[in-house]
């Protein structure tokens, strides 16, 4: 991966002074990347990270107004309503990190899926969560997985969480204003210990102890803020993560389905459980009834 900001040798092989066609190529470059009616810009299909933009004056504004992925009913005027709506959370405690998510995906008022995997396993020591536009999250995090693997191959060691989250944040930054919707948490355990970063579609990148992201995050924060302590045992932490997601799915229409929970330890992530939140509802109701009876 090329990090350099300086000028690279701009002549491609064959485009030197001996090449008769070089003047034509130079003129084409001068006309600008968008091209014009006589010679439209070359389509670069299939290149990673290259996207066709709408052939309008201000592609950023067009994407923002017509392809936005917004909460609630903000996208009613659009022909395509993107899949979104979620609750995800992650918190650091003394024995690692708990990552807990729901699995519902909505398109407007339609529940398009109840079994979305909102946790992506980037590598055995890195997990990413997905909130916001399902396609955006899914694509860019898989892309991040590819970059992390390339880093490993090139440098002979695993990428740090700080660097992985930075790569994602830089990509988001470069597409700022184009209407991407992604709120993710990149978490892992590297040589500096357990790390948790929040990365967002406008390029925000925050390091923190706990975050909750998504339409149901407010409800999850309520439970998290009440029950969080750094010295929770592993079981207590799992219970806290489960409960927070349950309460969010109970109140937020756009969250529901199954609670997937993972625990990040120094030996990598461990899958803990995938519990239907309806079952949790009856379980907690039972507990409450028993508590009241005694």
């Amino acid at each position, binding site marked *: 991966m090329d990090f350099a900001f300086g000028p690279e040798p701009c002549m491609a092989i064959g485009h030197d002074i*001996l090449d008769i066609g070089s003047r034509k190529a130079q003129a084409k470059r001068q006309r600008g990347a968008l091209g014009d009616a006589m010679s439209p810009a070359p389509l670069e299909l299939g290149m990673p990270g290259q996207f066709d933009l709408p052939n309008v004056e201000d592609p950023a504004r067009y994407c923002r107004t017509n392809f936005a992925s917004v909460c609630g009913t903000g996208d009613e005027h659009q022909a395509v309503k993107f899949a979104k709506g979620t609750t995800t959370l992650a918190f650091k405690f003394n024995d690692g990190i708990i990552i807990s998510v729901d699995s519902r995906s909505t398109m407007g008022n339609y529940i398009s899926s109840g079994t979305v995997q909102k946790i992506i396993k980037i590598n055995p020591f890195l997990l990413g969560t997905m909130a916001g536009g399902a396609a955006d999250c899914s694509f860019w995090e898989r892309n991040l997985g590819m970059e992390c693997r390339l880093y490993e191959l090139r*440098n002979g060691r695993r990428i*740090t969480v700080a660097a992985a989250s930075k790569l994602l944040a830089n990509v988001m930054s470069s597409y700022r204003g184009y209407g991407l919707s992604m709120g993710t948490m990149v978490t892992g355990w590297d040589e500096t210990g357990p790390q948790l970063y929040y990365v967002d579609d406008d390029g925000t990148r925050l390091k923190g102890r706990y975050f909750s992201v998504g339409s149901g995050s407010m409800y999850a924060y309520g439970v998290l803020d009440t029950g969080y302590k750094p010295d929770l045992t592993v079981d207590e932490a799992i219970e806290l993560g489960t409960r927070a997601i349950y309460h969010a799915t109970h109140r937020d229409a756009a969250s529901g389905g199954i609670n997937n929970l993972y625990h990040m330890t120094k030996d990598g992530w461990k899958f803990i459980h995938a519990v239907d939140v309806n079952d949790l509802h009856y379980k907690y109701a039972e507990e409450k009834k028993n508590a009241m009876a005694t």
Partner: protein
Amino acid sequence: MSYDRAITVFSPDGHLLQVEYSMEAVRRGSTVVGVQGKDCVVLAVEKKAIAKLQDARTIRKIVSVDERTVLAFAGLTADARVLINKVRVEAQSYRLTMEDDPSVDYIGRYLARVQQQYTQQGGVRPFGVASLLAGVAGDQSDPDKPLLYQTDPAGTHSRWKAQVVGGRNAKSLREFLEKQYHEDLTEEACVRLAIQALLEVVDSGAKTMEICVIQRGGKKVNISEAQVDAVVKEIEAEQQEEKGRGTGAAATS
């Protein structure tokens, strides 16, 4: 037909003549010796005589490219300046993106990649520079251990325990180092060995050498002229003794 005209052409026997000519340019440069010890890497360069009116402080042959990495080069100074600048920018870019120090291994790879790019494009010529890099973080199991890397105009890079680049006598100096080198040298022994090697090609005296040590953890230490002088005197005294003993033995037998 001449095959050395354009860089992008192989000769019939598989040589890239321009690349080999650039290695010749490196041979015309001044000598650089690098020695790796147990907890340090020593870089020693030959300082060619400076004109009377020139300010010696502006001629620096061992440069910092990052907080914990230094580079010494042999060959065309102007080419080296351009390469060093690219490497410095890349090191900062790495820091910005990865929030961490670039390892000496990463810097060596980047430098080698740039040098190779200029051997495979139209209209450019290779850099006439070979460099020795000393820095840390190249070894996963021991990130504070300083390591020695070499790059050359062809764009290869490799790690060395002791290496010489530049100067007409690089080959014989390398043989000298092979004979004298052994594992786990102390810092003092490393400096000594580097100076000994340089003394084979330069006039005696501290004014003709510049020595830099990278210690464990990446600390850079420039050896002062006085210290270099002291070591040179020691080495010369020893050599005199050896010679004396040799002639003495010849006389008696």
